[in-house]
């Protein structure tokens, strides 16, 4: 298992082949945070596109620039799919805005269950 802790996220890559990102409690992502997190994922990707689980349940959201960056071509090269883990009304709002306004280059879906998210992400391995 490999683990990287950035300013905004804890990122784990294990034998499942799926990158798991957990945004730190109460964090609001700026563009610089988004770039730092993607650089960390690139280390695991090794030139491939990986499925990613992002736990945004404790997040306070992200700037317009960070959301646009996550939907960019550059990120599309290293992510084959993205599952956003949401539960609270706030995290659902954040997730739905991201899916609605920021069209990612890869399939993105919201889940309230990590188990179901992982089942879906495994189809992209």
């Amino acid at each position, binding site marked *: 298992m490999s683990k990287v802790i950035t300013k905004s996220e804890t990122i784990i890559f294990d034998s499942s082949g799926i990158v798991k990102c957990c945004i730190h409690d109460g964090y*609001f992502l700026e563009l610089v945070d988004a770039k730092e997190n993607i650089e960390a994922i690139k280390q695991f990707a090794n030139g491939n596109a990986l499925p990613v689980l992002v736990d945004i349940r404790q997040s*306070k*959201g992200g700037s*317009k620039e960070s959301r646009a960056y996550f939907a960019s071509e550059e990120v599309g090269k290293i992510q084959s799919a993205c599952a956003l883990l949401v539960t*609270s*009304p*706030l995290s659902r*709002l954040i997730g739905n*805005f991201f899916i609605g*306004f920021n069209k990612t280059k890869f399939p993105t879906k919201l889940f309230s269950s990590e188990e179901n998210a992982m089942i879906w992400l495994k189809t992209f391995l």
Partner: protein
Amino acid sequence: MENDRLNNIIEMISSMARLDFSKRLETEISNDPIDLISYGLNMMSEELENNVVKKSKLQEINSNLKKFLIP
């Protein structure tokens, strides 16, 4: 207090209807329903402003391209 917040929300929606996306609501980021509505409106205003600017630029490009069309 709550009436003030609701009035501010109504004012913001009215501004957006006039395609004025410059306003932002002061809000905490929390699961309080009024905070959620305010946060959502702020994000929506940001994104709509972005899209209106993009549309305007595309219309300008389109207009310039039309000048090169052979009649």
